[in-house]
């Protein structure tokens, strides 16, 4: 008698644990992936698990990370922004365009004081974000298509401003944040941490952040609750463009040059960071915490593969497979939740 009830209680604890694991799958799976990668590379390469390398990894993900903060807002609303890398590139080129370049740089640039150049670059990226917002909420173009067009528009702005040339100089403030360091800590990591923290605070503790989650969770219900859905969507597109713009300026300083197609790889990196971290592509679930894990997975993977003997061409394929794995988990977790709801759970 006592034994059977003990067994029953045990089974209940088990099923409660099981349902907890299932409900937290979105957060657990990326975390476990990160631990596995860390352990694997730590064992495989003696040069991997060092403080210097940890700083390397953070520096390497910082540009993608700042973009990913804005993208997290967009994906939480169940939208997508494909123009992030292009807007970053354009903003970086705009800030260089308004900075005095060396005489050998063959660009018809307009030198202005640094503060003005930065302000103009920020205005430029906010404007591009507003165009995305108007296209989506006023005209009614799906974000996938609208931002695809914006991706090309951004590339066009880059091409027109630099005309195939390369600019090098940026305002000193940007140069410091992008390439300098303080007490041995690169400023760009500090900027990344500030952006992540700001993003988290806005999403978790402000009214706007709640609206982002609710619009992503059930857009129709948000509208029927009197939320101005179009305003929320517009805001997230501008936030995304602004984050991209900052990442673009710092990136130009970090790489030491401003040229066309410089940020092309960052679109995939930023989307991968958000989605691998476990933020739902269907909106309403996830957050900056997930994006941090996703960024670290991406950074550890890229960096770790350099520390082990591996065909550098194979690396590209491995990255693709990891991304696919994360997408499968992302969609699968959603399907499990839908089933539970359909079953009345």
């Amino acid at each position, binding site marked *: 008698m006592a034994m059977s009830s003990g067994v029953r209680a045990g089974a209940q604890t088990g099923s409660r644990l099981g349902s907890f694991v299932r409900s937290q799958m979105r957060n657990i799976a990326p975390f476990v992936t990160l631990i596995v990668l860390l352990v694997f590379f730590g064992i495989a390469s003696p040069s991997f698990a060092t403080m210097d390398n940890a700083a390397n990894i953070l520096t390497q993900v910082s540009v993608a990370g700042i973009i990913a903060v804005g993208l997290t807002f967009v994906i939480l609303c169940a939208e997508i922004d494909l123009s992030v890398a292009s807007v970053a590139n354009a903003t970086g080129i705009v800030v260089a365009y308004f900075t005095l370049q060396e005489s050998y740089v063959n660009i018809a640039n307009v030198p202005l004081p640094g503060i003005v150049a930065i302000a103009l670059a920020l205005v430029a990226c906010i404007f591009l974000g507003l165009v995305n917002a108007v296209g989506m909420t006023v005209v009614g173009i799906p974000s996938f298509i609208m931002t695809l067009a914006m991706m090309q528009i951004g590339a066009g702005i880059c091409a027109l401003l630099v005309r195939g040339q390369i600019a090098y100089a940026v305002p000193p403030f940007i140069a410091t944040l992008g390439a300098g360091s303080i007490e041995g800590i690169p400023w760009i990591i500090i900027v990344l941490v500030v952006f992540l923290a700001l993003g988290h605070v806005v999403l978790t*503790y*402000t*009214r*706007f*952040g*709640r*609206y982002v*989650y*609710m619009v992503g*969770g*059930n857009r*129709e*219900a*948000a*509208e*029927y*609750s*009197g*939320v*101005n*859905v*179009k*305003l929320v969507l517009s805001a997230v597109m501008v936030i995304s463009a602004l984050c991209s713009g900052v990442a673009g300026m710092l990136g130009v300083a970090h790489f030491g040059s401003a040229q066309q197609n410089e940020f092309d790889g960052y679109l995939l990196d930023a989307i991968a960071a958000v989605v691998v971290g476990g933020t739902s592509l269907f909106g*309403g*679930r996830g957050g900056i915490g997930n994006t941090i894990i996703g960024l670290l997975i991406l950074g550890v993977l890229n960096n770790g593969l350099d520390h082990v003997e591996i065909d550098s061409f194979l690396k590209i394929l491995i990255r693709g497979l990891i991304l696919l794995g994360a997408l499968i988990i992302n969609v699968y977790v959603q399907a499990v*939740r839908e089933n*539970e*709801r359909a079953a009345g*759970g």
Partner: protein
Amino acid sequence: MSTEPASAPEVRPARLTMQGISKSFGGVAALREVDFVLREGEIHGLVGENGAGKSTLMKIIAGVHPQYQGRMTIDGQEVQFRSARDALAAGIGMVHQELSIVSDLSVAENVYLGKQPTRRGIVDWRAMFEGAREQLASLGIDVDPRVRMGSLAIGLQQLIELARVLFSGARIVILDEPTSALSPPEVHRLFEVLRAVRAAGCSIVFISHFLDDVLAVSDTVTVFRNGQRVATEPATGIDKSWVIQRMIGRGHEDLEESYTGDVTLDSKPEAPVVLAVRGLAAGRAFDDVSFDVRAGEVLGVYGFMGSGQIELGRAMFGKLRPSAGTLSMAEKPLRLRNTADACRAGLAFVPESRRSMLFYREPVYKNESISVLGRIARLWLKPAVERDIARRHAEALSIRPASVETLLQSLSGGNQQKVALAKWLTWPPKVLVLNEPTRGMDVGAKEDVVRIVRGLRDKGIGIVVVSTEPETVLSMADRIVVMKKGRIVREFAGETVSKDRLLEAA
């Protein structure tokens, strides 16, 4: 109880017979021992309230429900359909209320959908256009088969879908609510076509809530109530009130339905007008709708499915932009660009489907606070205040479980509906519009909702209850307007009204 059309001058042979058909869904009987005969060249009207069993019977005929008890024969041959495809092959076609046309293709392509004539593997356009023209002309439909389907009026689209069903070889055609979206001339034309189809020997089942239409076109009328066939009569010997009496079944079986009797409306004509609706119109949905919403009064808006009342509710909350007319509060015209504007103006709305009002994966308190977040928080959220408000609502509306941290998806339907109402109770609105507030609820939950609505009314809120269920309107309303095909056709105020009078008006 049932009488065969014995006095008919000629009894045509039966095309479809059904004997002892029973069907239940999860222990709830939808059909009980139903016998049904459809004769050759007959238009057979089928009437009954929502849930009386007529659509279940038609779905069995159309092969949608393969599991049932009883026998079905077509032209004397016993049949047992495993799928809709089987039924189609046996010559049974269905035209649903929601048309299944492809609006971007031409009329001819729609008529020949899935079976275009080809020559050496290539679509034979000329044969298709010619064939479609002839096919349509034989039904008396004169339309250019080359025009895009979407450019035609609903009435024509429906006739073309009917033509396609006939063209695919159907000898039994089931029409579900065919007249709900049609104007009177379109109804007239549909009837002409149906008579032509009947003359060609086809049998037609005509399902409708519009009793006038059923009586005008049918040869025979069958009435369903509570999963049983209660009467079958030739249409010539009966009238609307005869049908309504049998549909409602006064007295006996429906004791649990407390609103079948007379209800005296407690209208308040002196109460101040909080919302004035004047000449409101929106596309095809509704036109020239005018009424006043008064403080402390429940206005019921009743109409059959598709009469435009659901869209009217949405338009009153800025979800649907009207094409003409005005809404005004306290003599000031309202301009609702979106639902946020409506909210600010003091309007509140609960849509017909809970799914479009609630956040299933969020806790109860977030579901309730979302609509008042702007008042309790400017920039920073105040979760303690949110929880506090939600706790008070849980207590006042006896929402179970009482914990406001519970995820909404684990609440029962009735409790979910209470949460949907609770969203608007923290700062009571001036006007509350409820679309189908009791749809799909059990009796106990319905009574809770009625009590909550009455409580809100007594606080002086102007309430609009929009429904296709007469009981819902009768149980809550102090004044009732009846909508029919997008227009208000009748107002009941300060008088005694009953379900049959309501049905009569609609």
